[in-house]
């Protein structure tokens, strides 16, 4: 990652491997996908404690 003009929060972000993403993907298959930070890269979805509507204008 080129850090020259990235935001500080991106620099501190946690990198999840493809395997880790798979672990938290797949609806109820893993029984953990209601957690406060559920990344579903297949569906391009971040489902967490904050809702999209909450952050809008």
């Amino acid at each position, binding site marked *: 990652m080129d850090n020259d003009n990235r935001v500080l929060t991106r620099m501190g972000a946690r990198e999840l491997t*493809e395997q880790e993403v798979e672990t*938290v993907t797949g609806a109820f298959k893993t029984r953990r996908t209601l957690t*406060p*930070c559920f990344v579903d890269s297949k569906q391009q979805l971040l489902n967490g404690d904050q809702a999209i509507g909450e952050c809008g204008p």
Partner: protein
Amino acid sequence: MKLIVLAPEDDNHTAPIKWAMEKAGQKVVCWAGLSWSEEGQSSLLMNGDDTLVLGGHSVDAGDVIWIRRPEPPVPNPKVSESDKKFAALEYRSFYHSIAYFLETLPVWCINRYSAARVMIQKAVQMRLASKCGLKTPATLMSNHPATVREFFARQNSRNICKGFTPHVWQKEGKMSVAITETFELGADQLPNDEVLTYAPAIYQERVPKEFDIRMVLMGNHIYSYALKNKKQALDWRQDAGLGHVTAELVPTPPDVEKGVLEFARQSGLCFGSLDFGVDAEGKWWFLEINEQGQFLWIDQFNRDARLLEKFCAFVTSPQGSTLPLEARQDLFPSLEEYEELLKREQVPPTARGRTDDPFLSMEA
């Protein structure tokens, strides 16, 4: 009485709760939010006998409105290019009218939209929590480099950095992602001043926590769960997703309970998920509240929690009831039962994809 849920039916909390309520004979309808399509249309008539209709469902006295996660308003895409901006603003204004109007009706809103809009602001949360007697860490929200450096120069301080909102960065063509997380940051790790202006951030005294608490507030009822992970990570959220966390019911200290109930009273919130850190001396530090935070995952980690049943008991109790939810939770089926049906595909799947997720960016 019926429960009107402002969220898509396949939202991962809405679907099991709707199913459980219906199994217990309760009426539940969903409205995903304002949109041009027939199911998204709404009418608000003020003509002596005021009425509000959401996607064909009338809002009646005594109804409970769970403003879970409505979709942002969707204008008709066929509208002229010249009118798109105007139409979008009109949709947004009408949605706000609906959301605030609900508070004026003889219904119970979980939560009132005005309270929710104020209390999602982390600065407001921290200040009110402190005012209500809850212990809060020193916090700076800033994009002013000199002030950030000054904050980090406090003697013997250890600090963390976190964002206001979650975000995911996905590498083009890959499955791996980077996700925002609270991280420790030393004064010597601060980037150059310009970077500190790229995005404001929250800088905070690091709570010397031994473990985390996820608390669920339902009216006058508080349920606290100790979250422990072997890695003792600063931010447990991803570890929860990876299954490295346990959730154990713990008693809430009386002073914390008193503070939280006062916080709820002053904020106007009757429902929410709160995060605390507990230090070696057993002191509970308030970190944040998400008024529509996820809570059913605790049932997945601890089958005795039965938060799905408790939530159903909560929304079918009279507003402000102090009777224990446990007394009525047996009226409702469990999340485990729902999950079994889901596995056998006897209930529809949850969490459909979005093609335009504002929390997700692509990067090279």
